[in-house]
């Protein structure tokens, strides 16, 4: 079922073995863990050579403050010709949550990266306009981090 997806992973490996740190095959989905420094190149390659012309979603995840690496950035790729899906993952530590932007590869990443910054505090280096997008500009903290309480720290006021 996932042979075709593993074919894309092989393509990645053939191009540059350092791009693939780990491969997870579960529930008919293939997830490729990519080292932080190679994500831009790997995305560029997959878009140009493997037909993944659409970035369906880019989102963050927080494993919790006790974990290291703490943050995950997921890239959900999709091809409008072959209809296959591939997930790339970058793991980031809490001390240095920086990763290069892919907004010049897929324009839609611009807002998704802003949302990931807004909610998780992951910094996308080279992003043209990394501002908060959903939460107010004077919001304190990053609301989807696991150590951020459900009701916030104090009654939020608009002044």
């Amino acid at each position, binding site marked *: 079922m996932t042979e075709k997806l593993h074919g894309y992973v092989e393509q990645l490996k053939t191009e540059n073995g350092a791009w693939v740190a780990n491969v997870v095959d579960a*529930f*008919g989905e293939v997830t490729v863990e990519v080292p932080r420094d190679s994500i831009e190149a790997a995305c560029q390659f997959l878009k140009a050579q493997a037909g993944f*012309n*659409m*970035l*369906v979603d880019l989102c963050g995840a927080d494993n919790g403050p006790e974990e290291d690496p703490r943050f995950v950035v997921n890239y959900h790729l999709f091809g*409008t010709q072959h*209809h296959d*899906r591939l997930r790339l993952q970058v793991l980031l530590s809490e001390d240095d949550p920086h990763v290069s932007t892919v907004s010049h590869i*897929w*324009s*839609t990443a611009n807002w998704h990266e802003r949302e990931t910054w807004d*909610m998780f505090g992951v910094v996308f280096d080279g992003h*043209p*306009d990394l501002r908060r*997008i*959903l*939460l*107010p500009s004077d919001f304190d903290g990053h*609301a*989807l981090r*696991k150590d*951020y309480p*459900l009701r916030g720290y104090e009654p939020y006021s608009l002044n």
Partner: protein
Amino acid sequence: MGVLAETPVNELDLLDQPLESEMTLSMGPQHPSTHGVLRLDLRLDGELVISAVPDIGYLHTGMEKLFEYKKYQQGIVITDRMDYLNPLGNNLAYVMAAEKLLGLEIPERAQVIRVLFCELQRIASHLVWLGTHALDIGAMSVFFFAFRHREKILNLIEAASGGRMTPSYFRIGGLMMDLPAGFDRRCKQFLDDFPEALSTFDTLVTGNTLWQARTKGIGIISREDAIDWGLTGPCLRGSGVDLDLRRDNPYTGYETYDFNVCVETDGDVWARFLVRMREMAESWKISRQALERLKPGPIKADAPKVVLPDRDDMRKHMDSLIHHFLIVA
């Protein structure tokens, strides 16, 4: 003019540039209880929008955060509220993810009912689009026709689930409960009447020259931009991308239904209008096939550890009561 295409990378810089014949206008936000609240910093030249800097998030409700504090069965009610025009579609996406993780086999009847309701919901959603779209363009009466038929679908959803806008009808492993007595007849009545309604909408708007003048050539999104921006659904198909997940990545048995994927190449408002209008007819086709396929049978997967037991069984069987307690409490 492709308005969004010309939005520069750094949107804020543009607002600082001097104006000549242009003006800036802060549009919105509307009242928080209205749908889709957003604010747009518009730069206008006469009636032409030169650029738009959207400010979104006014209705952000922190659903991901809420999910962290809920059991997975409870998450379904949150998915209703993601989009009140398509609660069942959101129910489906969530329960399918949970079912994939749990490895559940969904019985045939539940699958068919899911398809039936998703397609009815799609028609209802498109009717809201048609009514409000016409309202925004200046055609008042279409709204009343569209909403009258949408109401009929909401009545069907209410009959099955008890809720009009927030049904939570699909549950992990199947459905909340079986269809009520007489549902087939009521649904068939609606489906028999709907083609006439569709032709009424066509008569009201499609051939209208004013309508065409206000939609053709407006808001053009090219095929490349549509893919680059990650558009989906009718907006993507209106830009000439032949893609429909129901056909290309089928789920819930969609591969066994006979329907067409509607594609238009112009990428303007008119193209997206045509795609949605035809999609209503296709959804009607799928709904009819699903209704014909409806056979008696179980509506929940046989997995008592994760699927909520029937209320009836809970009054009779001790193990059902225990399972209910374990799942819910």
